């Protein structure tokens, strides 16, 4: 009898545990992250100073950085922002961002606000997963005034409904810079290369001599960026880039100089001057940081922050990065292009509002936006608290106080309204001031892919995968460059390239950008 009772109890326990997952979790139920932040809300909230009921909002973030505080108690920014706005802002880091966000939105578990690009904003608006914010426009007028009216543009709208808050998004495409090891140039007594032939000689000599003593690599970069250093001298970038030339919509893949560009790129590849690890996003950058690579293309922020310069100097105290001006063009009448950037440089990610987010929370977020759009709020998101983290020097310039650089490292996560990038970088990263000024002189390729609305039945991703694969095949010599025209024909025949370009022409003409 005793055994039967025991088995009965055991069965009940197992049944309950089986069915535990069937309970419906309501959207308003706090997530683990929210629960964790409830503790300081109860204990730390300065209830006397702020009479209104505090409110907690959750905001998605693609990544918080290595120096983000591990606990809310250690997060001085969160506390200060609360004291100023009466709003607890909880940042929710999301890896593999859009896929995870899709799943969270589907499951009703997404944060209250999340950054989205134009494509995803249209998709989410179409699915009813985000809510329009037209009626709040007056509430965030101070923030918009601070930003400038030009930031209230088409990338925030879907069919006349505003779905995202304006934001002065830093365009990381414009961060791309061509680097060269100045100490190696000096070692050889060479001048800064002006043509890709001189650049080839420099890379080849460095690799042959193993000038760094670390199994020297010629060119480092992420993915196609290294090859584009050379292709750019023919006025093209390697990939499916929709551009406008003489008022007509075209594609870099159709450029008559593409074959010559591929031939020039192949010469570097055949001489083993390009890092074999460029396809692995992290490895090639690490090679550059430790000084194994003598030249390359990378965003300045990947190499010139003080921490990375320290790594470089730990390996070789004499190592020094120099910056390459655009190489001379190889085609008469065509200007060299350096990397590319999207049409409407402010087309990056803006904050959209979860369809489930309450009006109270939206108003709380607007309160935060309006605060960080004041001079005080701006400096808080740039450099922290005056007197604690930064102060003005004798010349009236804001400078970070000694030993505070790590403490303010993560404040950029809270720049929900964006920033004036040039002004911000000059103040926060004085070590990269020269590089940031240098990169503004590049002539970059303007592409329009980001504003195109491409239907799923054109299988754009499949075409882009094929394009990348075949461009690599040409560069690696797996397919002769003489077959380039046949490759383009394959795009037309198999991948609907004609329909894609017709659609691009139609949409860009409708937008008044092309004839």
């Amino acid at each position: 009898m005793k055994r039967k009772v025991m088995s009965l109890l055991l069965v009940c326990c197992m049944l309950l545990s089986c069915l535990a997952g069937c309970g419906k979790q309501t959207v308003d139920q706090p997530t683990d992250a929210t629960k964790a932040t409830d503790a300081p809300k109860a204990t730390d909230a300065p209830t006397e100073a702020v009479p209104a009921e505090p409110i907690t909002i959750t905001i998605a973030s693609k990544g918080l950085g290595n120096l983000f505080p591990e606990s809310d108690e250690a997060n001085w920014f969160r506390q200060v922002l609360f004291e100023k706005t009466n709003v607890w802002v909880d940042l929710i880091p999301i890896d593999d961002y859009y896929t995870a966000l899709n799943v969270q939105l589907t499951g009703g578990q997404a944060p209250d606000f999340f950054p989205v690009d134009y494509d995803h904003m249209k998709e989410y608006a179409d699915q009813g997963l985000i809510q329009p914010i037209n009626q709040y426009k007056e509430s965030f007028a101070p923030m918009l005034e601070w930003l400038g009216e030009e930031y209230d543009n088409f990338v925030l709208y879907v069919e006349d409904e505003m779905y995202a808050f304006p934001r002065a998004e830093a365009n990381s495409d414009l961060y791309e810079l061509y680097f060269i090891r100045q100490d190696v140039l000096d070692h050889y007594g060479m001048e800064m290369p002006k043509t890709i032939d001189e650049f080839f000689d420099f890379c080849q000599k460095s690799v042959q001599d193993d000038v760094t003593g670390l199994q020297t690599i010629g060119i480092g970069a992420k993915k196609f960026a290294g090859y584009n250093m050379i292709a750019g001298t023919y006025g093209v970038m390697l990939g499916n880039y929709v551009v406008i030339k003489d008022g007509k919509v075209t594609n870099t893949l159709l450029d008559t100089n593409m074959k010559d560009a591929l031939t020039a790129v192949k010469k570097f590849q055949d001489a083993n001057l390009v890092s074999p690890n460029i396809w692995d996003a992290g490895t090639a950058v690490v090679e550059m940081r430790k000084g194994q690579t003598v030249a390359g293309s990378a965003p300045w922020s990947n190499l010139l922050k003080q921490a990375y310069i320290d790594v470089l100097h730990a390996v070789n105290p004499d190592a020094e990065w120099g910056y390459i001006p655009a190489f001379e063009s190889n085609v008469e009448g065509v200007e060299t292009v350096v990397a590319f950037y999207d049409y409407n440089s402010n087309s990056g990610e803006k904050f959209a509002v979860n369809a489930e987010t309450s009006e109270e929370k939206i108003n709380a977020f607007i309160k935060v936006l309006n605060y960080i759009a004041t001079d005080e709020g701006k400096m808080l998101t740039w450099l922290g608290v005056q007197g604690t983290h930064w102060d003005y020097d004798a010349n009236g310039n804001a400078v970070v106080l000694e030993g505070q650089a790590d403490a303010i490292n993560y404040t950029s996560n809270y720049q929900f309204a964006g920033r004036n990038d040039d002004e911000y970088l000059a103040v926060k990263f004085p070590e990269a001031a020269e590089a940031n000024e240098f990169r503004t002189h590049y002539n970059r390729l303007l592409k329009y892919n980001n504003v195109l609305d491409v239907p799923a039945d054109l299988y754009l991703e499949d075409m882009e995968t094929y394009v990348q694969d075949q461009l690599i095949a040409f560069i690696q010599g797996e397919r002769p460059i003489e077959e380039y025209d046949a490759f383009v024909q394959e795009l037309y025949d198999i991948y609907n390239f004609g329909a894609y370009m017709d659609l691009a022409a139609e949409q860009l003409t409708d937008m008044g950008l092309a004839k």
Partner: protein
Amino acid sequence: MSVASITPKKSSWGKCKKALFKWWPLYLMMLPGLVYLIVYKYVPMAGTIIAFKNYRVKVGIWGSPWADPWYKHFMDFFKSPANVQIIKNTITLSIGKLLIGLIPSLIFALAISECRNKPFVRVVQTVSYLPHFLSWVVIYGISQTMLSMNTGVVNRFLVSIGLESIPFLSSNDVIQGTLIGTDLWKGLGWGSITFLAAIIGIDKELYDAAEVDGCGRFRRIWHITLPCIRRIFIVLLVLKLGTVLDAGFNQVYVFMNERVNRSAEIIDTWVYTRGIGKMNYSLSTAVGLMKSVIASVLVIGTNKLARKWDSAIW
């Protein structure tokens, strides 16, 4: 009139009731397992209906309109210009992993069972099981250290003996071999457990008799061990065929990059990026459903075939 004809025949429901009453504690203990299966495995099957609808998150399954035509999302997969290549990649990797995964595990199990140095066997077994517990992200990190073109241990060795580096992780020609090889390394020890269990269960007297008859070690393996574990080999083969269209999403997703997309992209990674990544859940479900139907046909077919050798699962 025979006795049998006048005895009232017990209905199967009656038999069932009797068994239920007699063994009720056992049936009761079976209940949570049944509930688990029904709640988590059978009820969600109803969700496959979205393969035939244009599923929209906000309006839910029932509010979403039916696809027109009903097989639209199945066709979306087959109309993709990349589908031939990814189906080919999926089958090549699956068959490769199946064959190259099962046979070395069998050989490894035979070697372990024949080794008489027990402490050595224990160490080898433990070491061989360890990779099974590593995630693919960790294994990719190890692979980079070992197989990278310029800094990998293997390639540095090859170069040091005058050979050329092999782009294990960055060549369309080699990546499938790398994927199969790393899968083998990860699963070799773990995969041998079933075979070892089967070998241990073989009657020792058979070996003694064979020894008396003058059989050497290889003859004993050939005439006793292999025939005795044939059934378990076929059972594993049947079960593995059920996953023949799952070429290992986690592994492939970690190892994939632009350089090797052509040879590495499989159905699951394609569905992940085009389906889940684009909120096209109907497409994901349609492809998942199609895979399940094909896998069921394969399992049933192989089981029928296995019946010829008296090794069927059911």
